[in-house]
């Protein structure tokens, strides 16, 4: 499991952690029941405040990605298929918005884009 913190990023550190842990879970690198590093260990290794890692974990818990059991630590939560699908759809939408923005700037038609999408999807 890799977590990389950038100091030049505009995103706060806790958000960088939540995003990366989400990616790890969505990609299947970690699955239901897998143990996450303790908040204190993560803070130690990343050289950041414990409060920052605590906040990241609380966020992940609120969004249903992880569960924390007192005295036992934090685990990847039982996967809710709806939640994962939602998260995936959100990402696809984000990227499609980018693609459409480029198309509009370059005056490329909707039809052309749809054609391209079909070709790519069927590969």
């Amino acid at each position, binding site marked *: 499991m890799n977590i990389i913190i950038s100091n030049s990023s505009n995103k706060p550190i806790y958000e960088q952690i939540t995003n990366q842990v989400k990616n790890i879970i969505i990609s299947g690198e970690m699955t239901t029941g897998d143990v996450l590093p303790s*908040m*204190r260990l993560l*803070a*130690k290794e990343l050289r950041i405040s*414990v*409060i920052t890692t605590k906040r990241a974990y609380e966020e992940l818990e609120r969004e249903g990605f992880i569960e*924390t059991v*007192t005295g036992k630590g934090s685990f990847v939560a039982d996967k809710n298929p709806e939640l994962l699908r939602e998260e995936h759809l959100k990402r696809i939408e984000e990227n499609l918005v980018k693609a459409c923005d480029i198309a509009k700037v370059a005056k490329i038609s909707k039809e052309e884009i749809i054609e391209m999408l079909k070709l790519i999807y069927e590969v």
Partner: protein
Amino acid sequence: MQNMSLGKNSIVVDKISKRYDGFSLDNVSFNLPKGCIMGFIGENGAGKSTTIKIILGLVNPETGNVSVLGDSAQNGDIREDIGVVFDEGCFPDEMNADNLRSSFKYIYKNWDSNVFDDYLKRFAIPHKKNMKDFSRGMKMKLAIAVALSHKAKLLVLDEATSGLDPIVREQILDVFMEFIQNEENSILLSSHIVSDLEKVCDYITFIHEGKILLSKEKDLLMEEFGLLKCSKKELESMPKDAIERVRENQFGVEALVKRNKIGRNAIVDKATLEDIMLFMIRGNKVC
């Protein structure tokens, strides 16, 4: 999170005041929660050392109360649980690390010579060399080794980390983070410089001219403030209550601003702790 005893404090400083000729500590209050590291920052002479002496029970406040690990630091049992490192090496020049080991055995009930030897090895401190021949970094590492070899629950460092090279700071940082893996332990770290060591701080308490300017979670502090660089005219169009402090130069202004009040159109840079400290002390308030 439930398993963090954030509710319990290892240090509670409640409205302490103390007057000296030309300096006074005025109504100082803050809490250090267990399991956390607090950076206690301020200029030289701002009152950091006086506050720390009062916390350690070495000086009595005129008014106010201090509780350390649930009691007063004048209680001998509580002192056993505090590891202290001062700015200047406070061990006699003619002693070496081995002498210290044999002396501290009789001073601290919980002294553990094995732990001490481990630290000496890790910090590459010679056993037989006299301390007068130690570099500043070595003296500091030795003092930290002593402070951590009697099962302390609270570590108090007064200006101990200033003037150390990056390698030594790195080693000390590692030791701090290991210490704090036990969520009952906590660290109070005073410094006049804002450095890599503050990166790991959970709380920042900022003292200026004997008064506490702020004491809060570092993350919140970093989110609250930003740095705005613009022309004087542009600054005038910004909401007044967003502007905390201003520094002008011939070609423009820099302002420490509250991010949530400045509005979305302004381009606000990250403010470092050093920026916040400089602006709070040297910047002007807008009327």
